[in-house]
């Protein structure tokens, strides 16, 4: 029968979110149940509510940057107790036995279960964090550091790990290295903060000059290059060890490849729907690489959150009430947010009769 839950769901691909009563499973022996305090709005939520990737089933309760306080733990849970501050990101399950799972990379498990819109082991569909309570297997729960404000820390659970994982995996985390961050949105601004905390030199690459002051004076980037300005691109050629590319719109890779030093790495974390043009010559003549990355494993996510705690890294957020969510989605579509909306769930998501 499950426990009552209340949230906001999209009922069709118009993407409009509206009140939704549903139930979550009872707290199983390995489950952690928590009251949701805040949930970040990720651009993926927008893609999913509108079925832009063709995999959405309705009703869809989005949200995979979820933080809250534990209210109940199952009998076999060892690492968490009532009252703990916890979070859940993009994953709530995986097979546990494949090569990826064995290496702590549940995110690449072919049977990984995403926090919303996916079929769980009990054949129910998972519902995400735009809701009042969450229940999740202990293995996918993240402990949130005491010193971080939970609202601003919520986006770390997707945006944070999405940029942290490739910086580490591709060896772009050595002090003194110079990395570029393309796009200054939810992912990009967090990438700048982590990179600076890793003692890297950071250049932000953007299509317009409007965020230059922000990037340098507030976020701490070392330099700013407007990608449409030929001279700025030319002056920055062959200076970067790596680039974290957060842009999901169609765009040209050629100038970005030019900014890399030989052997440099262009990491795609944004996922344009249509294929991009790949100029092969920079790869062949300068041994450059283009790679992709998607969130991170659970162990890695915990490591990232712990680092954020140590260095006081949080997202720049606009806290909104639950009834603002549809307006927020419209603004998100136009990239009109500095840099993540976070829903004040506990205070503003109230069940309607």
């Amino acid at each position, binding site marked *: 029968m499950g426990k009552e839950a209340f949230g906001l769901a999209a009922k069709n691909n118009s993407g409009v979110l509206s009140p939704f009563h549903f139930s979550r499973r009872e707290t199983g022996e390995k489950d952690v149940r928590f009251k949701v305090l805040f949930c970040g709005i990720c651009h993926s939520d927008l893609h999913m509510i509108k079925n832009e990737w063709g995999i959405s089933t309705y009703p869809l309760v989005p949200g995979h940057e979820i933080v809250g306080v534990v209210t109940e733990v199952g009998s076999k849970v060892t690492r968490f107790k009532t009252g703990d501050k916890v979070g859940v990101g993009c994953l709530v399950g995986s097979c546990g036995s494949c*090569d*990826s799972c064995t290496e702590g*990379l549940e995110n*690449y498990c*072919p049977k990984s279960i995403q926090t919303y819109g996916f079929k769980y082991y009990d054949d129910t569909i998972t519902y995400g964090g735009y809701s009042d309570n969450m229940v999740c297997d202990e293995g996918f729960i993240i402990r949130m550091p005491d010193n971080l404000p939970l609202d601003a820390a919520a986006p770390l659970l997707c945006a944070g790990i999405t940029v942290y994982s490739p910086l580490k*995996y591709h060896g772009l985390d050595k002090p003194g290295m110079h990395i570029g961050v393309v796009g200054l949105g939810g992912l990009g601004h967090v990438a700048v903060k982590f990179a600076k905390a890793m003692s890297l030199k950071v250049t932000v690459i953007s299509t317009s000059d409007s965020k230059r002051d922000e990037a340098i004076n507030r976020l701490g980037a070392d330099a700013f290059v407007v990608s449409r300005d030929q001279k700025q691109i030319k002056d920055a050629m062959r200076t970067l060890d790596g680039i974290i590319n957060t842009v999901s719109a169609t765009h040209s*890779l*050629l100038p970005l490849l030019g900014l890399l030093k*030989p*052997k440099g790495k262009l990491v*795609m*974390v*944004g*996922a*344009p*729907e249509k*294929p*991009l*043009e*790949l*100029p*092969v*010559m*920079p*790869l*062949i*003549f*300068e*041994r*450059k*690489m*283009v*790679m*992709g*990355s*998607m969130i991170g494993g659970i162990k890695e996510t915990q490591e990232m959150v712990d680092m954020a705690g140590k260095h006081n890294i949080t997202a720049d957020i606009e806290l909104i009430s639950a009834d603002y969510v549809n307006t927020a989605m419209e603004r998100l579509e136009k990239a009109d947010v500095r840099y993540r909306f976070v829903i004040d769930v506990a205070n503003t998501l109230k069940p309607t009769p």
Partner: protein
Amino acid sequence: MAKSSDQNKAFGWAANDKSGVLSPFHFSRRENGDDDVTVKILFCGVCHSDLHTIKNDWGFSHYPIIPGHEIVGIATKVGKNVTKFKEGDRVGVGVIIGSCQSCESCNQDLENYCPQLVYTYNSRSSDGTRNQGGYSDKIVVDQRFVLSFPDGLPSDSGAPLLCAGITVYSPMKYYGMTEEKGKHLGVSGLGGLGHIAVKIGKAFGLKVTVISRSSDKESEAIDRLGADSFLVTTDSQKMKDSFGTMDFVLDTVSAEHSLLPLFSLLKVNGKLVALGLPEKPLELPIFPLVLGRKMVGGSQIGGMKETQEMLDFCAKHNIVADIELIKMSDINSAMDRLAKSDVRYRFVIDVANSINSA
């Protein structure tokens, strides 16, 4: 320009325009300097890059061009500073004959990534000379860019190793393909590069699957070259069955083609290495990269130290190219056949026996 004297006179076959037709051409090489080795050319491989260059497919050809960068010959003269070679030694000259010797790449023995790299042909040296390649009777090269040709490696079938061999060997090492036996390598395209990649892959203990557009070369690949399996890209069921099974794919194809099926063949964390130089950019689907943490990289020949290491490795494992030996005068029809991929798998010009000074 180098002073012309009887000693410097040279003879080769050059293309004069983008028709790519090669014909006899008299020119001169520089005097043998203190650091130089003069090589009497015995054999020269015909690389697909030679064809692209003489037809100006890449847009940076300057005519007249004598191509050829898979050169094996005998040292006939060595300058007074030359320590590594003596007259009579069997030597090789590959794709590069100069670099700055002071940048980060050069200091790491990666002359092939030096921004001031000088190619063996269709290039200009710092003294202004236009460099001409190995479809000629002799070449004069700085000792740092001359390779020692190991005993036991035949001059004719060993010649293609100087470009094709190093072009596949270098990325196999750099991208970690040779670290563990039993890993699965896909070789896309079975031509000059591809057939050597199969041989070198097997010598490193890898499982090798050849990926090809048609089944024509299947028995060749398996029975003669030693590949473990053969995958035809148009067989959608077999392709599907092979999704997510390969650790690496070496893509040797330079014609326009889709990368999506090659990415699908890779396991999570799989690596696709592009070696072919297409005329236009390829289409890169991003989702497979992101969903599977896959990557596409490139590679260009190798440094001199690595090229020597490759030659020694091939000599040890008896790896040579499969060649069709031709006379210099047959070069134009060979180029026509190469354009249609009608060769198993490299033409090599028997230079010494067929190039004659008119």
